[in-house]
């Protein structure tokens, strides 16, 4: 009687396993990976779709981009889960540096916020220059207003304006939507309500919402975008070289040209700070 020893796997399975191991072993060394977090505003405007590929082509670094709310992306940086973070809340960015999670903050670009609203403009704010007074008029008219409600840069700016007017925003028409800028603009369009929006996202969504730019130009509506590199001393495994490359490129003349040259519906929506960093 012949003893059939079933040693190991049948031939077909063995061949598949060998092939799989060959493929895994021969996997090419991954290009240098750079984890970047950025806020919704930069993505919604379309700017990152221009900048990221340009950076990747220039440096050979592969960017892994995470988009989220301001609090979320700042938290990622604070936890060392990303190598750098792009946002537009200077106080949060500076806090990253002061707590040691971030190494340094650099200014990338700036633009501004608008008060936008329905063409009928029930609160009569069109053409005003004082943003705080305009917010007061919206409150007094009990007009509909949609707030981001999410502690984002835009929401913080809105809260600052209410605070400056000495108003606690709470009335039937005041809606606190926990949504990103684009969705809030769409909601404001549906409700024919006022809202505070950044120049770039508004340019992207304006046509869809039927809202109009009613107030701009108040210096308090200034909006600055910054990048913070995460501290490699605090978090081992941070790809500090790639972060450094990114920041150098981002503040270089070429990138600044791309940022200033970026157009939404034919309009410039990001501006380069006058003095170099």
């Amino acid at each position: 009687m012949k003893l059939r020893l079933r040693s190991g796997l049948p031939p077909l399975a063995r061949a598949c396993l060998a092939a799989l191991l060959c493929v895994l072993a021969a996997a090419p060394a991954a290009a240098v990976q750079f984890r970047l977090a950025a806020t919704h505003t930069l993505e919604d405007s379309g700017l990152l779709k221009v900048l990221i590929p340009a950076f990747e082509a220039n440096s050979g670094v592969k960017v892994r981009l995470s988009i989220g709310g301001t609090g979320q992306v700042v938290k990622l940086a604070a936890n060392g889960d990303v190598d750098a973070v792009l946002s537009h809340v200077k106080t949060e960015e500076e806090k990253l540096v002061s707590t040691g999670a971030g190494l340094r903050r650099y200014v990338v670009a700036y633009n501004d916020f608008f008060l936008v609203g329905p063409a009928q403009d029930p609160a009569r704010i069109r053409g005003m220059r004082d943003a705080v007074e305009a917010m007061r008029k919206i409150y007094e008219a009990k007009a509909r207003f949609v707030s981001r409600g999410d502690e984002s840069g835009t929401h913080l700016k809105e809260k600052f304006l209410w605070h400056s007017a000495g108003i606690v925003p709470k009335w039937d028409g005041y809606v606190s939507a926990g949504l990103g800028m684009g969705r809030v603009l769409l909601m404001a369009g549906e409700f024919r309500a006022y809202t505070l929006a950044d120049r770039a996202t508004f340019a992207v969504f304006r046509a869809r919402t039927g809202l109009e730019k009613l107030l701009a130009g108040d210096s308090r509506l200034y909006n600055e975008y910054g990048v913070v590199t995460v501290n490699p001393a605090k978090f081992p495994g941070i790809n500090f070289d790639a972060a450094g490359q990114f920041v150098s490129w981002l503040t270089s003349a070429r990138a600044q040209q791309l940022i200033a040259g970026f157009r939404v519906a034919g309009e410039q929506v990001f501006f380069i700070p006058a003095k170099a960093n």
Partner: protein
Amino acid sequence: MEMLLTIRQAFALLFSGDPELWTTIWISLRVSLIALAIATPVAVTVGYALAQTRFPGRRVLIVLIQGLLSFPTVVVGLVLYILLTRQGPLGSWQLLFTQDAMIIGQAVIAFPVLAAFALAAVQGADPRAHETAVSLGASPLRAALTTLLEVRFAVVAGVFNGFGRVISEVGCAMMVGGNIAGVTRNIPTAIALETSKGDFAQGVALGMVLMLFALGISIALGLLQGRGGLK
């Protein structure tokens, strides 16, 4: 360590009496329970009909319903949004960003779950219950109810499943509800908001609150079902 802190945070949140939290919980429960109340009778009827009757296209319908079980909730939300937006066909109803829109969305999401479970339940029913009822002179409706009573545990399992799917979904609720504080912010959309604020612990705490309620409902229903329920 972080996890223990988060669990403590969850209980603290629950017993803090925070009115915002309780509004959020109420909205979650109200929307999901009404959606189920609307979807269940329709879905059970459809499931029963698919199991017991034969008509052309029956197989196609069954395959479709079972396929819809994997349909992303955010796509349900998108389709509903397109219908309800101002420029859309149902724009004049002004349902967008209301609880009613969320209820409609969740009813649509729950329907295939409830129907598929009802179908499987009735298919697995002992045919003698139905035959006996008919031979005793029961009307078709009465006989149907007899069968459904026979397989009630399997049908209720479907209801639990449907409830689970809608109480935890965020894609549709976000899309047609808009996460408006005090109006359309339910627990899953509130968690999404906390996440976007970077307050992960608060998000998990809210999730645990949701779990506690789901467990509570599960226990209550199990007790109601009597010995046959909690086997």
